[in-house]
């Protein structure tokens, strides 16, 4: 059936970064199988971090080769017969993903001074059962997290480095499936975590089904799923232009296909109206995973999106390009508006950051809508700036916790007693954090300022570049809309900063927070509610449970747990990067400029 088969040439050296990460995932699974419990966690962490670090090195080496060579013979960016295409741009995206994944993994690895990581001892156990208790007491650990992280990272790296829509689909699944699982593994607030996973999974599967159907339509039209292709096997754009697509003339087929593919990408990016999963999943997932997901997935999604769009809009007939561009503009405006407006009324820090990420997706789309080399560059820088701020911000969130107060010390004094519970995510609990943990608060404020785009932070340079890209694409009015949205966005970031730094954590504040939490608990959000729920025979928490919970909640105070090192390192690196990129963005901008030299 295959008349003449020639084995594709495989440039193993060029594939090395990808293989190291995925290989580390495979080895991680074997580690799970064979390494004894006592050293398993240490082994997994070492393996994961070493693999990511090695990948960074490999990417840097490869960068020198393909950017420095100026297209020297023997150095090709088309690998495995075109299935993988590591252009400088893709390589830059990969590098960003891996570096952010490294920082994210550091946060994941931190057990904090409470001695527990963010993951359930056995995620499969039913919350509140004796089996779960047993697992907790036995000190079981869910170290599968690390191989899953590796697979997700590998999937993201492949996602941005392929010209082949099918491979993109496979990569999409390789990156998504581990994330679905990771979302379900939170140690506390298990119900929320599971819910997040279920929603993410169902919607993600739905979106990827739309994506692959789009691929099917494109295949039906063009007879290929490669976008650019090469001389022997021309891709979609070549076939459309040369008019030798099998179903030439049925343009509606290819446009519908491309739109569906875009939907899949916009879903991952969290753009309105495909954003609905974002707040729920970000809020429910274990916080370190949220940080990883928010940063790395977004890089992968927007990287793939900008690549596909740029290729198509430049390659296809102008009227098709104009249609696609209009779609992106409309989505960008919707996304910015919804992200900032709904973000402004959030009362939960994780949801707030989630809406912030939606808003950022909008700003990114402003850059993308420019559809020029400037937008590729702007997107690269924006992702670095946004990524470090996001990983850092969620890293800070992991350290702000609730703690039970031992009866008799209900004054909420800063005693070291009491059990550290989950994260104190309600905004009212963050009031006056500045006094309790000045450094942490300063770092968090810095990340928020960067997200708000205040000068001398990375976010400012990033937004500047993004809007500049839109202007370069003759979309100055879109840039104006973007600036307006940024102004509104500043409002909700500053609100949090003011809350942390200038609002005293007064007693009434504490009570108000407890009240709010009790309210939430009545609807079952808190882990206390969860405990209550599990004990009261798995009935969804009703009024009776709520009163019970109220007394319980009132006896918790907010505490800041110390990092065991990794998370602190990650937060510090992110903070320094945010500042340095704000003051000396030159080198990174230059790198980004080199990444777009050979398009795309």
């Amino acid at each position, binding site marked *: *059936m*295959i008349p003449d*088969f020639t*084995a594709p040439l495989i440039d193993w050296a060029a594939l090395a970064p990808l293989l190291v990460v995925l290989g580390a995932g*495979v080895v991680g*699974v*074997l580690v*799970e*199988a*064979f390494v004894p419990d006592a050293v398993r966690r240490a082994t997994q962490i070492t393996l994961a971090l070493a693999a990511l670090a090695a990948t960074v090195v490999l990417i840097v080496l490869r960068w020198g080769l393909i950017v420095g060579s100026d297209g020297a013979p023997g150095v090709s960016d088309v690998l495995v017969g075109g299935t993988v295409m590591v252009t400088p741009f893709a390589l830059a995206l990969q590098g960003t993903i891996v570096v952010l994944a490294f920082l994210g993994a550091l946060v994941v690895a931190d057990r904090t001074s409470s001695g527990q990581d963010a993951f359930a001892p056995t995620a499969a156990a039913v919350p509140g059962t004796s089996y779960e208790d047993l697992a907790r007491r036995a000190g079981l650990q869910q170290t599968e997290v690390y191989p899953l992280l590796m697979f997700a990272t590998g999937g993201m790296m492949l996602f941005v480095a392929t010209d082949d829509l099918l491979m993109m689909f496979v990569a999409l699944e390789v990156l998504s499936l581990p994330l679905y699982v990771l979302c379900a593994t939170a140690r506390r607030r298990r119900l929320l975590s599971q819910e997040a996973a279920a929603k993410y999974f169902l919607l993600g599967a739905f979106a990827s089904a739309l994506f692959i159907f789009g691929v099917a339509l494109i295949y039906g039209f063009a007879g290929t799923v490669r976008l650019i292709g090469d001389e022997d096997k021309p891709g979609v754009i070549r076939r459309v232009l040369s008019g030798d697509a099998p179903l030439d003339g049925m343009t509606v087929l290819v446009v519908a296909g491309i739109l569906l593919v875009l939907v899949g990408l916009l879903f991952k990016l969290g753009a309105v109206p495909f954003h609905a999963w974002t707040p729920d999943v970000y809020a429910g997932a274990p916080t370190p995973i949220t940080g990883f997901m928010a940063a790395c997935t977004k890089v992968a999604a927007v990287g793939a999106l900008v690549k596909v769009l740029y290729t198509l809009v430049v390659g296809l007939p102008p009227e098709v390009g104009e249609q696609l561009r209009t779609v992106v503009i409309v989505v960008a405006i919707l996304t910015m508006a919804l992200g900032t407006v709904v973000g402004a009324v959030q009362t939960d820090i994780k949801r707030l950051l989630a809406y912030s990420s939606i808003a950022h997706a909008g700003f990114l789309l402003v850059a993308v809508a420019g559809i020029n080399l400037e937008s590729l560059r702007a997107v690269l820088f924006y992702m670095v700036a946004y990524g470090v701020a996001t990983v850092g911000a969620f890293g800070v969130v992991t350290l702000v916790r609730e703690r039970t107060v031992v009866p008799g010390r209900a004054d909420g004094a800063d005693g070291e007693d009491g059990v550290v519970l989950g994260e104190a995510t309600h905004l009212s609990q963050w009031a006056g954090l500045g006094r309790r943990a000045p450094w942490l608060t300063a770092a968090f404020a810095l990340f928020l300022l960067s997200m708000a785009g205040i000068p001398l932070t990375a976010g400012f340079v990033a937004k500047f570049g993004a809007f500049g890209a839109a202007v370069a694409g003759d979309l100055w009015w879109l840039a104006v809309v973007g600036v307006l949205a940024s102004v509104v966005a500043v409002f909700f970031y500053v609100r949090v900063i003011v809350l942390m730094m200038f609002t005293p954590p007064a007693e009434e504040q504490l009570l108000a927070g407890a009240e709010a939490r009790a309210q939430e608990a009545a609807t079952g959000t808190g882990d206390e509610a969860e405990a209550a729920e599990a004990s009261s025979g798995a009935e969804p928490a009703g009024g009776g449970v709520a009163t019970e919970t109220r007394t319980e909640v009132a006896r918790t105070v907010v505490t800041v747990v110390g990092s065991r090192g990794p998370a602190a390192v990650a937060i510090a690196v992110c903070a320094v990067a945010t500042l340095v990129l704000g003051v000396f963005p030159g080198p990174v901008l230059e790198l980004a400029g080199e990444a777009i030299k050979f398009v795309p």
Partner: protein
Amino acid sequence: MTNPYVPVLVLMAVAAVLALGGVAASAVIGPKRYNRAKLDAYECGIEPTPHATGGGRLPIKYYLVAMTFIVFDIEVVFLYPWAVDFTTLATFGLVAMLGFLALITVPFVYEWRRGGFDWV
């Protein structure tokens, strides 16, 4: 006898005879001593869940088995086309497939070590 489809027809006939014959034979000559356990729904040897939710639909536990099944089922999807074109794909195909099988083994090993196959 040169028609290539004749062996296929023969094969199908044999299969049909065996399948139908087996059922028929057991119905005719098998002993008919029923008890409660035998009248219950056959659920892979596991005790049936008393209250099936959703009005007699399958209890969700069985999806667990389904998951394990699928892991091993899916490799065939790739093995089959490879087998068809084994000769053309030559060494490259062989090596690639060996790699694929090695990877498939990894989750198998994981599941085995983690007690995934400790049915009883």
